[in-house]
């Protein structure tokens, strides 16, 4: 299992790791916190098609959108773990769930 963690310029942590079950997800970006348990909004950029649905329907303004349409975690502290982004992302590319035993199975 390869594992690489580094801090990018945006202050986000980029993880590279073999996804369990050989999913072709290489880059998983979490928000600025070092502890992913505290602010667990994950975006799988490899699968994201930049449609903007998650940003449009996040009820708290936790997510933002860059000029090219890419979603990012703008205000991590605002996430209420409502899972709206989870359910409405057509590409299974984002999760804001807190419950590791529920929708997560990590």
């Amino acid at each position: 299992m390869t594992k690489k963690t580094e801090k990018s310029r945006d202050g986000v942590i980029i993880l590279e790791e073999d996804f369990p079950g050989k999913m072709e997800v290489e880059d998983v970006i979490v928000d600025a916190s070092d502890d992913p348990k505290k602010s667990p909004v994950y975006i799988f950029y490899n699968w994201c098609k930049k449609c903007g649905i998650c940003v449009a329907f996040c009820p708290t303004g936790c997510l933002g959108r860059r000029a090219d349409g890419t979603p990012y975690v703008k205000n991590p502290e605002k996430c209420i773990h409502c899972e709206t982004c989870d359910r409405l992302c057509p590409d299974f590319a984002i999760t804001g769930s807190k419950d590791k035993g529920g929708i997560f199975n990590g």
Partner: protein
Amino acid sequence: MASIPQKVVHQYLRHNKKFPHVWCAGCSNGIVLGAVIRAIHELQIPKDDVMMVSGIGCTSRMPVYVDFNSLHTLHGRAIAFATGIKMVKPNMKVIVITGDGDATAIGGNHFIHAARRNIDLTVLVLNNHIYGMTGGQYSPTTPEGDFASTTPYGNIDEPFNICQLAMGAGATFVARGTAFHALETQTLIKEAILHKGCSVLEIVSSCPVIYGRLNKKGSPSRMLENMRDNSINIKAAEKLPPEQTEGKIIRGILKKDDKAVEYYDKYTQLVNRIKSKNK
């Protein structure tokens, strides 16, 4: 560092398929696939007991991506294949995924006869009001006046109401959801799977790239907002005067009849009757 959490949905995807999937950015097919997977996960049906059957179309690519028993058949013929499977494997949960064109145009015949027979299938019709895969020809559910590549001056046909069609043909569970109301749709999918008999669930979905562009419906999120603003739950609708619900998408369970005998049961009764006569 904790390991990367995996969504429930990811456990049900076929890991040898290429992701992201083929659907266009913002196409609601993915949202519905998520709802289907979560519904099956919540019902705790083992993967091997689920059979997902589809025809041809964008929507019909869905079974390709999930790790159930799956059958990607001919355009319009999903229900015919599913009927065969149900007769041979009556304990399997047979789920048909079909588009509006697949179910009501080329496959209209199979659709009404499955409903008439009340065979225990779960038919999910994703109604995006157009033939997405082949470039936007109008379908039997394209609203009057709307544009498609084959109706450049607006459609003059009266559209089918899929739920009414299913009810008229005799389906014993008929419901409607939308892709935007993903959680509600997930509950409806669960109810449809649990119902014994022919269950038809119309899921109003969006094709932002073809139907959306031709009809100036805006961005993918704008199309989902439209579903939110132009639909109403049947329970709320019943309390309102009919003028106020006119033109709205009515969501929820429209028909549920638990008394009608299911087709395979009838068949078993017939077989037993003949066997006992010949003894």
